[in-house]
C-alpha cells in the first residue's frame, strides 16, 4: 500500500511539475513565472489536501498561462505541444482523483494496472484524434478548388460539437 502511494505520488508530482513548467519553455518573464508558481502551488495543494477544485483551478490557470505565453511570444502553431500538454493535464486531473482513493480506501494491486490501462487507452485515442485533427487543419486551406468542402467540414464540426454537448448533458 505504501509502495502504491509512493509510486502514485511520484507520478502525480511529475505531472504537476510538467504541467506547470510548460510556459517556461517559451519565456521566463516575471509575470509568467509567477503564474507558473501559482499553477504548480494550486495543483500541489489540491492533490495533497484532496480538494479537487484546486486541481481544476490549476488546470484552468495553466491553460490561461500557456495560451498567454504562446500569444505573447507569437510562437508558430505547435499542435504537438498542445497535445502533450493536454495529456499531462489529463494525467494531473486523473491522478489526483486516484490519489484520493489511496487516501481513503484499501486499493488492491490489480486496480493500479487497470487505471494505467485506461489512461494509456485514452492517451492513444487522444493521439489518434489529435493527428486526425491536425491533418484536417493542415489540409483545409489547400482545398481552394473545392470551395464547398470547407463549408461542409464546418457544418460537420458544428454538428459534432452539438452532439458531444448533448451526450455530456445526458
Amino acid at each position, binding site marked *: 500500500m505504501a509502495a502504491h502511494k509512493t509510486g502514485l505520488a511520484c507520478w502525480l508530482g511529475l505531472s504537476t511539475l510538467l504541467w506547470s513548467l510548460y510556459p517556461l519553455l517559451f519565456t521566463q518573464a516575471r509575470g509568467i513565472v509567477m503564474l507558473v508558481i501559482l499553477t504548480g502551488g494550486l495543483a500541489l495543494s489540491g492533490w495533497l489536501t484532496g480538494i*479537487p*477544485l484546486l486541481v*481544476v483551478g490549476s*488546470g*484552468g490557470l495553466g*491553460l*490561461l498561462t*500557456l*495560451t498567454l505565453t*504562446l*500569444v505573447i511570444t507569437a510562437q508558430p*502553431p*505547435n*499542435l504537438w*505541444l*498542445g*497535445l502533450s*500538454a*493536454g*495529456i499531462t*493535464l*489529463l494525467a494531473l*486531473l*486523473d491522478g489526483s*482523483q486516484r490519489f484520493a*482513493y489511496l487516501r*481513503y*480506501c*484499501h*486499493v*488492491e494491486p*490489480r*486496480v493500479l494496472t*487497470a*487505471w494505467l490501462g*485506461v489512461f494509456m*487507452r*485514452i*492517451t492513444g*485515442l*487522444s493521439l489518434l*484524434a*489529435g493527428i486526425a*485533427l491536425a491533418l484536417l*487543419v493542415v489540409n483545409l486551406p489547400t482545398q481552394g478548388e473545392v470551395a464547398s468542402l470547407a463549408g461542409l467540414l464546418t457544418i460537420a464540426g458544428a454538428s459534432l460539437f452539438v452532439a*458531444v454537448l448533448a*451526450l*455530456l448533458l*445526458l
Partner: protein
Amino acid sequence: MAMQRRNSAQNHYYFSLLLVGVVFSVVSRRLEPLFMILPLLIALLHSRLSQTEPRFTLQCHLTPLRVFEGDRVTVHLTIQAETALPPMELWHLLPAEAICAEGRQRVLFTLDAGEHRTFLHEVTFPRRGKYVLGRLYARVHPGTDLQPFLAEYHYDQLCYVYPHVAPLPHHLPPMYTHASFGNYVSRTAGEGLEFAGIRPYSSGDRVRRVHWRTSLRRQQLYVTDYYRERNADIIILLDTLVSLGSPQANTLDVSVRAAAALAAHYLYHKDRVGLIHYGGVCTWIPPGSGQPQLYRLLDALLGTQTLFSYLTADIARIPPRVLPPGALIFVITTMLDGRIDVALHDLLARGFQFVLLVISPAHVMPTAKHQRSSEAIARLWRLEMGLRLQELHRLGVPVVMQNSGDPLAGLYAMMSRGSLWPRTRQDWHAG
C-alpha cells in the same frame, strides 16, 4: 439490485475545462488550447461509450452481534462476480460511533468473471448502544471515474453493544440473606453442598444421607450433615435524573458501567439481582438470578438515558417484589439532582441497607486549561458532597465517592476489609 449510472463531480470539472479551452482558443485564435482539451474530451466520450453494466452478488456477514464495549465485531464482505468487474469501490458505512480497528471498511478492487473474494474488517464500539451495521455502497468505475455505476445495499443487522463489565476483585457480602441455593453458607444445617459434620441417625433422616463408612465402623447408622445454602437480593438503583459530560464521556455511561459490573459480579455469586432506573418516573426489572437475568439487565442498561421530567418518584410506589425487604441496594448517583435525596431518605426510613456510590463529574468533564483549576474544581465538588453526605455518614450508610476513572475503586477498599456493616448488624440472619 440494479445499478444506477450517475455523473461524478469530476465530470463537471472536465466539462468546465473543456469550455475554458474552447473560449481561450477562440479568443487567442490559436489551436493549442483546443488540442490541450482534446484528451479531456476523449475521456468524457470514453466514459459515455462504455455502458456495460457489471453483474455480481454481494453478501455481508457480521459476527458476533452481541458484544461488550471495546470488543470487536468482524464484518465479512463476500463478492461473487458474474461478469468481469472493472475497478469497484465497496464501502461499508459505519455508524459515527464505530471505529474500524483492523482492515479497511472501504476497498477498491477488480475481479475477473466468476471470481469471488472476501474482505474482512473489524469494528469496535467505545460506547454502549444498539447499532445498525451492514449498509453498503458500491461504485463501479468502467474506464474513467466520470460516470460510475452506483448501488446501495441494506444488509441491516442490529448489533447490541453492552456496557463494559469490569471484574470486581473482592466480594461485599450483604447483611441479610434468605434460604435458597447460593454461595453463602448458613451456620445451621440443612440442604446444601458444604460438609458440616457426621451425627447419629435419627428418625426422619433421609437414607441417601447415611454415611456408610462410619456406620459400618461404629455398627450404628450415621448421617452426614450439610450447611444450608443461602443467597441475597441485590438491587441496583441507577439515578438517571442527570447526566453530565459529552456524548463520548458522561456520568450516565460511567454509572451504567458500574451497574453492569455489580450486576455481573453478584449474579456470578448466585444472588438475585434487580435494577431500578430512578429518573423522575421509575422503571425496573425484578430481581432474578442466572445468565438470562444478566442479559435482561444488560439489555435494560443498554437503553438507559436521561429523560427530562418534573416528577419525583416515590419509593413506596415500587412493588415489594422489585424492592424486597432485606435487599442490599447499591445507589449509583451523581447527587446533582435534589430528587435523589428524597429517595435516599425514603430508603433509610424503610430500613433498607444500601451503599451509596457517588459518581464524580470531574472525571468526565473537559479538563480545564490549568491543572490547578481542575484540581480546585474536584476539591470543591468533594467538599460540597462531603457536606451533603454528612448526615448519611452519621447514620452509618457506606458512601463511596469516585476518586479515579474507575467508580468502583473506592468500593474495593471497603470490600477487601470484609466488614462493611456495623459490628452489631454483621451476623447473618440465618433462617
